[in-house]
């Protein structure tokens, strides 16, 4: 098994942004009998690295104007690249928490922080410049799920903790025989998943 990676630093997010994000992933993934806290699982590091790289720069997005608002089904239509949208959303969310509770998001009691995130997700935290609901559903939430379940080579899912939790065996996935032997039965390989790191 790979040793636990040391807590890597942030490359895109500033200290206040990183503190906010760590508080968010610790609410979304609290330390419990299933996994360590989101921060300790590497979730915030994963998100920072993705935003700092090709994804955050919108490397594969069509980015020419004009910029017109459309139906949600026509997809994201802002000139901002994902990394900029993320940071803008963080700034709005931090301000909204401050004005609602009189303290910063990371200082909130877990129940308040959880309720605040729910309000963001359901569109109840309104800002006249930026849709926090879109920010959450289109950017933060997909990144959160990827951070949990992507290969640990990307910095999240530390020690394959989420793969062990659900029983995803990972690599190398040569199942021609297992497919028959374990059809309809628990697969022992699911207890000890392997990642790209184990083969690198």
């Amino acid at each position, binding site marked *: 098994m790979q040793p636990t990676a040391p807590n890597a630093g942030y490359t895109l997010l500033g200290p206040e942004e990183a503190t906010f994000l760590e508080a968010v992933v610790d609410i979304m993934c609290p330390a419990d009998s299933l996994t360590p806290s989101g921060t300790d699982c590497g979730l915030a590091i994963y998100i920072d690295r993705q935003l700092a790289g090709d994804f955050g720069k919108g490397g594969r997005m069509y*980015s020419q104007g004009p910029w017109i608002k*459309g139906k949600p089904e026509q*997809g994201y239509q802002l000139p901002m690249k994902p990394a900029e949208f993320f940071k803008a959303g963080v700034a709005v969310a931090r301000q909204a928490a401050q004005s609602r509770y009189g303290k910063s998001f990371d200082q909130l009691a877990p129940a308040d922080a959880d309720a605040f995130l729910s309000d963001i997700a359901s569109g109840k935290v309104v800002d006249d410049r930026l849709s926090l609901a879109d920010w959450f559903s289109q950017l933060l939430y997909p990144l959160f799920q*990827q951070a949990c379940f992507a290969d640990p080579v990307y910095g999240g899912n530390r020690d394959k903790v989420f793969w062990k939790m659900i029983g995803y065996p990972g690599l*190398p996935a040569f*199942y021609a025989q297992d497919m028959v032997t374990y059809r309809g039965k*628990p697969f022992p390989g*699911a207890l000890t998943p392997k990642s*790209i790191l184990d083969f690198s």
Partner: protein
Amino acid sequence: MNRKLKSRQVVFVGGGLMAALAARKLVEDGVDVLVLERGRDHDAGAEHRLPSQRDELRWGVRNHLAQDWSIETYTLRYTHKETALPIRTLAAFLPGEGVGGAGNHWNGQCFRWTDYDMQLRTRLVDRYGASAVPPEMPIQDWGVTYEELEPYHERFEKLFGVAGKAGNLRGQIQPGGNPFEAARRSEYPQPPLEITEAGVILSEAAAKFGYKPFPMPASNSPHVYVNPDGMRLGACQYCGHCERFICESNAKGSPEVLLYPVLKRKKNFEIRPYSHVTAIEYDPKAKRVKGVRYIDLESGDVIEQPAELVVLAAFTFTNTKLLLGSRIGTPYDPVTRRGVVGRNFCHQTSSSMNVFYKDRWINPFFASGSTQTILDEFNGDNFDHTGLDFMGGAYIFNNTTNGRPISTRPLPPGTPQWGTKWKQASADWYSHAFTLTTIGSCYPHVENYLSLDPTYRDAYGQPLIRITFDWRDNEVKMSQYVTRKMAELANASGATIVGPAAPRKGPYDSRLYQTTHVVGGTPMGADPHTSVVSPHLQHWDAENLFVVGGSVYAHNAGYNPTALMGAIGLRLSDDLSRYARKPQRL
């Protein structure tokens, strides 16, 4: 810099499955063939090797094998009166890029279509009367019959080592196969893939209704297989990394594995990667094409490549875009309903629902792209539509292709989006759930078409293709009907929890993957007023131009398109050989 190269006998645009099949006979005959492909050769890349091939994030979520949207995307609107917006990150379907095209990252599902699909209009009118097809639905015959295509189906299945169980051998219905399939002259070249636990559950439920489940015809090789060209497929490892991935075991029938290596051995064949074709040179007076123009991405040069014969063999949108941009043929107009280029654009109508079984081990990671069990009772015109207010249908199946955990992790309705309960539900249900899906027909509508966008351009300065499309009444009603049938099965399957069954409805959602089966735009047919190419795929307005691929489909059925495209591509191979020997209207 602009350069003009010496003329070539035949130039293909697009180095995917179609060029590899349609060039076969020409290359055998010793004809000089050049294929221009915009992307790279994938052979030595991370996408083809372990461990990087098993990277769900890069290939499965970020779709790094699909077209790069920063270079070229499509715009979308719902009626011809709206302004279209660019789809900035497209997810609804996944065109490929590079040698092999979308034939690299497909799932391998390899259906023949029914014996009536090629004469759909005739069939519907014969069965339901002259008013069966409303005027706003230009359903039309294709100008070719299943019987004409059958020998080519046979050849394609042998080339690709397709695995399955025949349901209709020369008119005799076979137990264990699809009783609705068109007559086949012989069994599949290989026996079916292993069934999944989800397939066992669906088969048990189907038996209660008297339905006849059968294994998905698969171009995922269950055993080592050597095809008639002497090319070898490895044995499928059931690794769950087919669609959106390149098979690292070479077990999935793909042009790069089976076809291009054979062509590349011949001195009269050349494939040129990094060549982005921007136009076909057309002489409207002579009604002939003179060659193509492309950007050589390795030098930036604009290259003029003259040719005696040009074959457009790119993805659906590119074929249409090049004809519109090069002003070959009359563009379709949705108001007058005249013109042809861009008409009959169709996606495919799917819907799905999750089912959960506390005491059954689904092990979703034991899968290939085609380890599914299918019911065809409610597909196409396999059932009587008398009294129903729609045409078409769908197959129903357990859509078990992978257990990749970012994307394939069904959760019971009502599960919170995060927190301990979310994690617990993921842990409880990951190995005990799967998705039931319908893949259904999409028949043409006068408002669903392709044109050039007046505003947005690609990275090379050319107009993007504009998609005008939505789910119209017929498809919405069809989806409601087949989704209800799927839900009946789910409810009778002994499931602990049955998720919501959501039929497809508008607005068309560019953010959700549906299928990559987008067809039409340059339909084939016997009537030049309603088709772009003849039944032999020869352009009506240029004798030395042929078009092949999903773009020539006149409608979409509730079947995956690849096997039919394979048959059409091989038939074109014979036609091109005939044409090269004696150029004329075929």
